[in-house]
């Protein structure tokens, strides 16, 4: 009696699993999205989440034709917290994909956790060079760029337009040095001085005095986040804006412009995307974003939107069979979706081969300050690391 009861119970449990398991998996797709949602940098995460939600809205509330459940996780800008969040998503929430992540150091910790578990990771910002080169992975796709590419584009532009004697300023940490080495890969002119400042520095008046004393012809700056906001304000107050051209990467964007307003006008940036890119997907994204959230979208959001669209294209290609990871990887390699940057191809390392543009922040007749494309610097630019990528 006892035995029969037990086996009956076991049978029922097995039957329930056999029945509920695949059926539930086919009913909906679960996506984990990790970003930084707290602290001063939480604002970037918010822009990414807003864009993810807009993407799902554009897809009619479905991803790959299936109802979608999103799991948002806050990495607090800490690699260990990122790993914790990813593990929880994979084990407890049983997500099918993990996407997002702003910071390279967080990505380097989280990516192995996701790909080792046999799931696809879609990076929508962090551009760590090892992941484009020696540590590339079949299951890892980027919808953004490699860190070096943007400063490479700026270096190319400065060389092409014959700008000589530039003053370089960047924070004293790995990404700061990477940006400058990316710049130097294509910039062949003279560098008057390289000034590495403290990470998170507030006051740049001493550096501004120093750079003025060196009489450079232009300034190249990589000062992301709050550092950039402070530098732009102080550069303007020192009377240098408009006097000494300022070329930046990851410093002037739609997050910093509202905080500095006119102090951003006339500053140059290099980027692969701009709100004024003329393609139907982008025009719809920018218009709907402004309508829904009442502000301009930023590139962090654009590439997160693309991340959802990439996942959507992969699920559609395998007709909703989320078990067919290989089939989805094959589909993703085709980049068969309407990217906001326009059509692009994936390189062998699963990083986009894409155009880079020179942007300038300008004041429109209506008084808004917007980034506008001035010219195309690179067409179909590949990153510098893909040859080290031996993907199996």
């Amino acid at each position: 009696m006892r035995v029969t009861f037990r086996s009956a119970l076991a049978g029922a449990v097995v039957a329930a699993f056999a029945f509920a398991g695949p059926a539930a998996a086919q009913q909906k797709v679960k996506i984990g999205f990790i970003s930084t949602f707290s602290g001063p940098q939480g604002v970037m995460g918010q822009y990414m989440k807003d864009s993810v939600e807009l993407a799902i809205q554009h897809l009619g509330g479905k991803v790959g034709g299936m109802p979608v459940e999103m799991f948002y996780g806050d990495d607090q800008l800490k690699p260990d917290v990122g790993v914790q969040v990813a593990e929880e998503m994979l084990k407890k929430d049983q997500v099918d994909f993990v996407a997002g992540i702003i910071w390279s150091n967080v990505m380097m910790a989280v990516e192995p956790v996701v790909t080792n578990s046999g799931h696809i990771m879609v990076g929508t910002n962090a551009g760590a060079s090892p992941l484009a080169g020696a540590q590339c992975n079949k299951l890892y796709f980027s919808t953004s760029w490699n860190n070096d590419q943007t400063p490479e584009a700026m270096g190319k532009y400065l060389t092409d337009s014959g700008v000589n004697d530039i003053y370089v300023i960047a924070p004293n940490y790995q990404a700061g040095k990477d940006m400058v080495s990316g710049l130097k890969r294509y910039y062949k002119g003279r560098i008057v001085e390289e000034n590495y400042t403290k990470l998170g520095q507030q006051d740049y008046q001493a550096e501004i005095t120093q750079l003025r004393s060196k009489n450079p012809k232009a300034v190249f700056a990589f000062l992301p986040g709050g550092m950039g906001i402070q530098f732009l304000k102080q550069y303007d107050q020192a009377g240098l804006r408009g006097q000494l051209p300022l070329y930046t990467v990851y410093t002037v964007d739609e997050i910093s412009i509202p905080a500095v307003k006119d102090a951003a006008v006339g500053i140059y940036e290099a980027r692969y995307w701009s709100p004024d890119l003329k393609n139907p997907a982008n025009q719809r994204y920018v218009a709907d974003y402004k309508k829904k959230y009442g502000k301009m979208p930023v590139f962090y959001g654009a590439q997160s939107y693309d991340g959802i669209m990439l996942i959507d294209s992969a699920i559609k290609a395998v007709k909703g069979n989320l078990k067919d990871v290989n089939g989805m990887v094959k589909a993703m390699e085709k980049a068969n979706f309407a990217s906001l940057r326009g059509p692009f191809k994936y390189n062998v390392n699963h990083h986009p081969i894409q155009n880079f543009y020179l942007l300038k922040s300008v004041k429109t007749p209506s008084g808004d300050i917007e980034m506008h494309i001035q010219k195309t610097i690179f067409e179909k630019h590949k990153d510098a690391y893909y040859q080290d990528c031996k993907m199996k």
Partner: protein
Amino acid sequence: MMATLVFEQLLNGLQFGVMLFLMAAGLTLVFGIMNLINLAHGSLYMVGAYLTVAATQWTGSYLAGVALGLAGTLVVGMAVEVIALRPLYERDHLDQVLVTFGLILFFNELVAILWGRAALFASGPSWLSGHIDLFTGSRYPAYRAAIIVVGLVVALVLWYVVTRTRLGMLIRAGATNRTMVAALGVNIRLLYTVVFGFGAALAGLAGLLAGPIYNVQPGMGELILIQVFVVIVIGGIGSVRGAFVGALIVGIVDTLGRAFLKPLLATLISPPAAQSAGPALASMLIYLLMALVLAFRPQGLFPARGG
């Protein structure tokens, strides 16, 4: 050429030092008189900046914004003292650190809820947007010059209040022996609330002055707070005079280090080595200085008398 550069950098250092002093004065007063370690001093700096931005937008006038921002921070400071800090005076410093750290989290989230996490636009008055022509031939932002003037005036007023007025006498007496002052019939509770409120207003003043040049964002106070602690450790905890001297030393050492340490090192060691050691050393300089002061004069350069 070199002399004018050094002069300009000294001016930059003085300005940064004055900014630090405004923060340090409030922090050191509160510690010296109330024996309270207030980690949330940076939050009051942030509150000052945000209230001024909001009030300037609301009234449309910078000066009205400043007045309301200062008054608002004073009120917030007094409320914090009455609600959160009063039960802590008899406890040890660890409890104070815990509670005031909690206040940091509280204020950062509150500000994020009210104004969002994105940095706010904060501008100075248009009549300070120009430049001053220095005799060296270069231009100095008028706004930064104004910060120097405001800081020096505040230092003078503080010196006068603490050493020459009845309130100052009570403050000094309270720092030395609070039980005796209370026994003489002085309302020591009220005195504490007033002192804490004014300390908060000083932090708010620093915050509202910082708005147009720094980043007005949740968590902005913690960035400057560490340097402010260095200032009061160097100057002597609890001493306003020490805070003033300490702030100027830290401001000038930090600025000159950032400007001249790398070229100086390049004359001693190879330029590539100086290129990597210079920035690292420059950002450590004020902490090295603090370590030196702690080693040779642990009580600080101008320790507070008594208490």
